[in-house]
């Protein structure tokens, strides 16, 4: 059934038990993003250690897709270099904008592949990307931001 193809168990698990939720100090960059069509919002902070993402903390309110996607994001980027995180982000964005025609690479996206079904629903793609746009923006606002561009 369609609904299950969008709401994979992995997504519902992240939604009910989000990873790294909450805003923490200190941080190097912060971004607030809002989806003007539905009002979903997220505030996300990035803490760096050199060029490695040491922590991502966030707070916001939104649907299961936006919340779960942000939770998955933290798993995928924390402990990785900014260069790797950017590569992962690009892969996730490509998946989400692929209208369900992009085959996700589990090696790169791990739990993120669960969002492949969401990509078939254009109205929900923005939900899935909300946290990622916040991450991208927060990184730009750190001192390291310039180097990753």
């Amino acid at each position, binding site marked *: *059934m*369609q*609904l299950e193809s*969008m*709401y994979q168990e992995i997504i*519902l698990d992240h*939604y*009910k*038990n*989000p990873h790294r*939720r909450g805003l923490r100090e200190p941080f190097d960059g912060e971004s607030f993003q809002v989806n003007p*069509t*539905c*009002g*979903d*919002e997220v505030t996300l902070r990035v803490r760096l250690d050199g060029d490695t993402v040491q922590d991502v903390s966030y707070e916001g*309110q*939104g*649907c*299961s*897709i936006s*919340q779960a996607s942000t939770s998955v994001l933290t798993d995928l980027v924390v402990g990785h270099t900014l260069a790797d995180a950017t590569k992962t982000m690009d892969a996730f964005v490509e998946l989400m904008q692929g209208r369900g025609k992009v085959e996700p690479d589990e090696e790169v996206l791990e739990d993120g592949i669960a969002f492949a079904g969401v990509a078939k*629903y254009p109205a*929900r793609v923005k*939900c899935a990307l909300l946290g990622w746009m916040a991450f991208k923006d927060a990184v730009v606002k750190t001192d390291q931001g310039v180097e990753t561009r």
Partner: protein
Amino acid sequence: MTTTTPNQALLDVDTLRADFPILSRTVRDGKPLVYLDSGATSQRPRQVLDAERRFLETSNAAVHRGAHQLAEEATDAYEDARARLAAFVGASTGELVFTKNATEGVNLVAYAMGNAATAGKEAARFVLREGDEIVVTEMEHHANLVPWQQLAQRTGATLRWFGVTDDGRLDLSNLDELVHERTRLVAFTHQSNVLGTVNPPERIVARAKEVGALTVLDACQSVPHGSVDFTALGVDFAVFSGHKMLAPSGIGVLYGRRELLEAMPPFLTGGSMIEQVFMERSTFAEPPQRFEAGVPMTSQAIGLGAAVDYLSAIGMDRIAAHEHALTEAAVRGLGEIPGVRIVGPTDGVDRGGAISFVVDGVHPHDAGQVLDSLGVEVRVGHHCAWPLHRRLGIPASIRASVYLYNDESDIAALLAGVREAQRFFGVDTAARTASAGEGSQP
């Protein structure tokens, strides 16, 4: 439908649904379409589609230009649509301006007022200055809020607003205090597109008249659903959209009292709206042409005229009674589901067919997705009324909105869909605890 209730006897929904081809399609893997989003846009009957097509196949030409036969026929059809619209809302023909949509209608007034300062003595009554006040309400659609914020910004006027009570009514307890001698304009909705609340124009208009303020009524959610007479209401301006009343998109209406339209400077300028043009200056046509610059939407206006005929033939009072019964059934049914909260009045008094609600533990977007998977099409989000949602302490809501073509089976599908959303997201309504939705929704 298998049951016959007195409500359905009033309106033969089965028969009139046959006029709306789209309603017989299926969505999402063969689910029958249950369309509960007419508050956003309504579906169009064959009669409206046919009228547009007939016009385009026989009489299409640019209106109010040219002297050939097609131009004559097109102009007649366009003006005939205006006349039918005018009769429909209790106005005279010269008091209706065709616009792109209701949003353009509000902007037309706002920009005309902004232009008034340099438009001569006649326009003095529209001029806003620092210290003047514009009053709106906290339940406005962005279309009847943002243009006034902008006008206040351009003129130095101050924006003030009526609050909303916890049960979703307009708080008019401070009416005399809020609308006073410095108030130049009061803009308010006839019926909230979120709460369904029907506001009392008479009270607000009476006070506005006492202090000499203009009134602007957002009638987008009222004109399509019942009898509305602008002259009887006494408002100075009113706006509504065609696409919410069975007509095409791209056509809306601005009503303005004749005397005001005559004194008001134009918003958009160019062809059609002029009287005389010289290289250095121009004079302007009488209303309504003064406010219809450029070649107007023609087949859309003809479609709107046909929609008015369609609605009138059924009868606006019958439509209102039908929707009232459906609204009460929906509000009652939703109220009986544990964990569902209605956003707006929970009784049927002064309440229209926009039924918004939230489901504890299920984000509106997610609930909407479950409903959609069952073929039930509702609106989710803030419905272009963000400040209202903020006031009510919710990020978004789910809105079902009914029209003449809905029946009780649609409401039953909505209720079943809401229960399914609760089941899918593991909201145990029998034994809900504080842990439900933990880490997700406040």
